[in-house]
């Protein structure tokens, strides 16, 4: 069964304290892995797409990496405005119309 597990569920950081969020996935064949940011009361906002193991994408203080079993979202020197829930989703090859989402990591960055 296709499954996405994110850890930790919640993470509290001091401003400037770098860390990583984990997304472990089980899927028969991976078409793409997607990272989203979701602010309270809003819809998820697209951040990155990763397609194959070894691929990396960067945007400002965020860097996403992908292996055959998991993806990491590295946050370097975070700021309070990075506080949000970060969601990971996988798109299977055989059923590419359906995205499987994890439950997210709620990040809180304190000034």
């Amino acid at each position: 069964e296709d499954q996405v597990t994110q850890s930790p569920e919640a993470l509290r950081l001091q401003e400037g304290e770098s860390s990583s969020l984990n997304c472990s996935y089980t899927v028969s064949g991976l078409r793409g892995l997607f990272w989203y940011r979701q602010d309270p009361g809003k819809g998820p906002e697209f951040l990155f797409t990763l397609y194959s193991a070894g691929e990396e994408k960067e945007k400002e203080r965020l860097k996403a990496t992908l292996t055959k079993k998991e993806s990491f979202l590295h946050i370097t020197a975070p700021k309070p405005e990075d506080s949000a829930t970060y969601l990971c989703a996988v798109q299977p090859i055989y059923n590419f119309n359906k995205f499987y989402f994890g439950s997210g990591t709620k990040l809180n960055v304190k000034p």
Partner: protein
Amino acid sequence: DAGVTQSPTHLIKTRGQQVTLRCSPISGHKSVSWYQQVLGQGPQFIFQYYEKEERGRGNFPDRFSARQFPNYSSELNVNALLLGDSALYLCASTTSGGGNSPLHFGNGTRLTVT
């Protein structure tokens, strides 16, 4: 450019009632998907439509139905509402039905069933 728009933003219904949620995709996007997000969980897939045809359905009962119109906008209908249907309903659009395009989400409709 306008993003995905959903209406209404909030809705309160009573058990047993029916509800219709509406979605307008990003201009040029022909595929619309619907997701249900319960508080504290990730979005769960309900339907995907492309060129007015259903291309995918998640594990939801037949009380849930949807359709897509010639202008690519979409409606999600839920009949015989249950308390457990209370959630944020998200609409997402993509450029095509089967490519590698990411989902672009609207801000959702918050449905409360009492």
